[in-house]
């Protein structure tokens, strides 16, 4: 059956897919990717590039599992259209290690046992690095407040806070 025969679905008859080429530097590699205009950065990473480290939790900017660094700043990739960020530099959890050597924040998550199921962890790690870059967290209370955009349903918060504290101390030394 062709679209024009589907009289019960008038929307489908007028449906057209608009695509664009987007140029992004992802984990240091410049790439040109053609996506539908409604593709989020999150879907681009996971579905087009198969970088599935970045997680889709709520897809509404409430859980923080999709947090990546865009031009050095942490953002919710689920609420970002790829076509609006042509030319951007994106770092995901896959881009943090140097060869087999983990990023210090990744190591600290293991050392402090800062996760159970691990689903929120890539977002927590990117958010921690973003928080350190921002340089606004001074107290324990600041850390808790500034990490509140990353939900952990296993409740590993106490140990996540220890990781952030350590990352801040390292950045100062």
């Amino acid at each position: 059956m062709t679209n024009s025969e589907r009289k019960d679905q008038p929307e489908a008859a007028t449906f057209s897919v608009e695509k664009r080429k987007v140029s992004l530097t992802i984990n240091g590699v410049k790439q040109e990717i053609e996506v539908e205009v409604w593709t989020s950065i999150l879907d681009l990473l996971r579905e087009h590039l198969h970088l599935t480290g970045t997680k889709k939790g709520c897809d509404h900017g409430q859980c923080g599992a999709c947090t990546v660094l865009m031009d050095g700043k942490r953002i919710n990739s689920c609420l970002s259209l790829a076509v609006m960020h042509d030319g951007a530099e994106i770092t995901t959890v896959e881009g943090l290690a140097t060869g087999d050597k983990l990023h210090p924040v990744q190591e600290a998550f293991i050392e402090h046992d800062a996760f159970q199921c691990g689903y929120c962890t890539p977002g927590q790690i990117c958010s921690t690095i973003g928080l350190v870059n921002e340089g606004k967290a001074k107290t324990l209370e600041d850390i808790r407040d500034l990490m509140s955009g990353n939900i952990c349903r296993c409740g590993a918060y106490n140990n996540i806070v220890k990781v952030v504290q350590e990352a801040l101390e390292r950045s100062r030394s």
Partner: protein
Amino acid sequence: MRPFSFTKAGDIASALKINSETEKAKFIAGGTNLLDLMKFDIMHPKHLIDITGVALKTIENTEDGGLRLGALVSNADTAYHEEVEKRYPLLSNAILAGASAQLRNKATNGGNLLQRTRCYYFYDLTTPCNKREPGTGCSAINGYNRLHAIFGASEQCIATHPSDMCVALAALEATVQVTGPNGDRSIAFEDFHRLPGDTPEKDSNLSEDEIIISIDLPPKGFSENFTYIKNRDRASYSFALVSMAVGLEMENDTIKEARIALGGVAHKPWRNKEAEALLENKKATKENFEKVADAIINGAKAYQYNEFKIELARRTVVRALMQAAKIDK
């Protein structure tokens, strides 16, 4: 999300032109609220006009000694801007009380003003909502209305405005500069948002074909005596039950001018200027603050599940004024 077409506008003139020539178009900048609402199928524009490429990204001094906040500056860059922190700490605190660090990095100042209510029924497509679909009815009035308005509501809608930033802007008496096909105009902050009345689908007095250019802050920033209090169900990343922005101009222990704006209680940031005037040339005492608090809650109307907000608002007025005046008892 429903399919849509997309254009990136190079400047404001072309953004306005594309908008006038395209059916069901919508401007997009940070996207943190609009894309969320599109995913829920609450808003369904057929065309998005990306305005992030136009030049509204600076914070600069105005000729009258105030500060102009570009509409496309992010909430985070505004809150942490040196001049905002120094001259308008009330605004900085209010912005940082809202959303999460990730959202503040993307959300823009113009978009903050235009964010839509967090009424559960507005988000629930299976229930009637006059704001989402005019004429279908309000599910909140006789529903679960814990988050809802105690001031200025109508039979059509009892939703609240969710912004923290806007509560501070109401207290600071900012001006919103906008532009559209008919030229530029200035909107006083108190006239920017609307009460629901019979048209709850309209949140603000900005026309569909207008763009916010900047938010201008007047010179007076109340940087000596101010506070922003946000009462909510958890300590962070949660919408306000009752929030409050207070700015005081003081001479020793006498109040010359008081600004008190409430959030989470109405369809717009709520002020009661007659009540504020009760503090003019009065001593900063708990007793005087309690009188103002009583005047502010006078006329409040609760629904089944939000009666607690009236007493919470009264106590918060007293506490906020004491914090701003820096008195303990």
